[in-house]
């Protein structure tokens, strides 16, 4: 029983950083779902593209001048990844979803699956299917303490993930609740037709949703690359389903729900992999998704969906 406490503490730290990434991606799912009621199946690939653009930028900046300050490389990678990935988010919506407004529910979903397959294979063609290693930009720990003889540490990368997520969540919450665009978003998620009648450019709002989702996913992608140290074109698929699980867990359509769901899923998964064989951690996440959808499809913070005839 002696070593339980440090293991627990370490798992909480790991779970929080993993959960932060899930939360970042989950917001993209939840915002899109809240506004147009579709599952943006290609969102996981957007996150993967963010990770790739980040690594390409880091490598390019690292090669351009050997001794560039670390903060500059990191913020450069983040900014470029965010810009390019946001452009992907916007384009995907424009090309694959906008022409399908008003079609039956399954039509945009199939289009999204097609887009997801397309993007995955597109990156595979451009960058190869093998693992790409990410240069360790932030080695070392923020702190390492001794709990009853066992070290518990928070690495700098993990700390960055947690703090960046926290900052972005606060910024997003403020933006959605205070700004003009945020108000338009909330109006659209309540009643798209009415918002349109009242002079809100709904197409712009929808594009904005996709762009915000892509920005957050890009940040998540760059940071996970740094944290895990390698990426491949297939990371988006599993991360996408897990983030969707997080969004459903918190209540799809609800932004605080996505944050809560992400953190809860991250914690569940790290604890599961600490006490079960690691191969089964994905099974735990998928199983959790099935269970929530069966027993509480509205999630923790969601509002019940009233079916109108």
């Amino acid at each position, binding site marked *: 029983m002696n070593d339980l406490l440090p293991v627990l503490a370490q798992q909480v730290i790991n779970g929080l950083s993993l959960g932060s990434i899930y939360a970042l991606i989950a917001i993209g799912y939840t915002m899109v779902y809240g506004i147009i009621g579709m599952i943006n199946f290609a969102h996981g690939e957007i996150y993967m593209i963010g990770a790739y653009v980040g690594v390409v930028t880091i490598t390019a900046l690292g090669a351009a001048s050997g001794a560039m300050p670390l903060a500059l490389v990191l913020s450069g990678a983040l900014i470029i990844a965010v810009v390019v990935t946001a452009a992907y988010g916007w384009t995907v919506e424009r090309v694959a979803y906008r022409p*399908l407004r008003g079609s039956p529910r399954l039509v945009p979903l199939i289009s999204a699956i097609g887009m997801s397959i397309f993007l995955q294979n597109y990156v595979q063609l451009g960058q190869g299917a093998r693992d790409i290693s990410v240069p360790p930009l932030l080695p070392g720990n923020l702190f390492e303490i001794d709990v009853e003889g066992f070290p518990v540490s928070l690495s700098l990368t993990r700390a960055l993930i947690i703090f960046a997520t926290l900052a972005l969540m606060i910024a997003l919450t403020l933006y959605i609740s205070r700004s003009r665009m945020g108000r338009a978003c909330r109006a659209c998620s309540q009643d798209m037709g009415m918002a349109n009648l009242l002079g809100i450019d709904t197409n712009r709002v929808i594009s904005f949703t996709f762009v915000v989702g892509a920005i957050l996913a890009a940040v998540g992608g760059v940071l996970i690359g740094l944290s895990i140290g390698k990426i491949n074109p297939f990371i988006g698929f599993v991360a996408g*389903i897990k983030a969707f699980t997080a969004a459903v867990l918190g209540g799809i359509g609800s932004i605080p729900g996505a944050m809560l769901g992400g953190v809860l899923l991250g914690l569940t998964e790290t604890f599961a992999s600490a006490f079960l064989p690691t191969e089964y951690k994905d099974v735990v996440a998928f199983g959790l998704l099935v269970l929530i959808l069966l027993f509480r499809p509205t999630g923790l913070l969601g509002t019940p969906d009233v079916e109108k005839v």
Partner: protein
Amino acid sequence: MKSLKTACMAALLTAVLTLPLLGAHLVVNGLSTTLVVNLWPVGIAVLLVFVAQLLDLKARLGAITQALPTVSLSSASFSRHIRLWLAVVLVAALIFPFVASRGAVDVATYALTYVMLGLGLNIVVGFAGLLDLGYVAFYAVGAYSYALLSQYFGLSFWVCLPIGGLFAATFGILLGFPVLRLRGDYLAIVTLGFGEIIRLVLNNWDSLTHGPDGINGIARPTVFGLELNRRASPGGTTLHEFFGIPFDSLYAVIALYLIALLLVILTLFIINRLVRMPVGRAWEALREDEIACRSLGLNPTLIKLSAFALGACFAGLAGAFYASRLGTITPESFTFIESAVVLAIVVLGGMGSQIGVILAALLLTVLPELARSFSEYRMLIFGLVMVLMMIWRPQGLMPATRPRLELPTAEEAHQ
């Protein structure tokens, strides 16, 4: 002038999008990663997008696709000759393996497996309107039940085939019973999660499934009790010994093709009977309007469950055949991509249209085999086709004609 401006903007956007992913290639040498810049693909992509935008290619191609004739399978002339057509196709399919090359027969067998999968998924997606993204799970269940039963108990293919189908159907019912209450898109994600769970369990349950190594040396099917191998197993007789002819591995290829053909015909027969029965009518009614069905006293869960289980059953049969054909299976054969390919077949053919699904399955399996040099673009094109089909022709290449009856308008009623 406006189109020139849009084209320039689109080209610029393409440059931004493709530059980091196609233009700069990450190369790993040992521990260090370097960038190799190659601007050719970016230039090609930019040019393509520019020209396509300038000519408004998307709208033009869309118009052409939409204008493609809709083959109406219920038209009088067609149904009058349907028996003749079926006979011609059947005779051609029967003669085919004896005249075609060995490679062609192999590809045809492979394609027929997908025809079966496509027809099975068509029940779920096309007739019942339930999006199942984990269809490959049932395929895996069928394949593994045959492989394991034949390894551990030495059961023959013909005994295991129905067992594989029943196992898969049971899994379908077990999964379907709780999840079919969910709305369409949630159902899609849950089935996807279920498909992944099955694959992960197969991958990690080493003691039963040998994990990632899979199962090797699965017995081939027998033909009326005759084996297709060079040497007979103890107590068995091989085909060539029985007829007193020299051994040729081509016999096995032809026999497998004929078994696949038999399975496809069986599938078609069962499905065609079922869609004319009340349960088949109920599937389509449910797809069109669930609330109306409920008000008419149909039990949506039971009807969905029957479609789900039947689709799973055909996937199980196809899986058992797949395992016996290849002789070796690994969990890697049952990834999400397989589900997506089968879904693409159903979508491309036209949801609910059986002839469309058969043609799409042949198209999507034979074309990549013919164009081997394009094989790395195969999935890329699949994805693109799925998106474009949804935009241009969501009803598929050969849409199913849906029974419909419209109330006459006021003027027509008065005439």
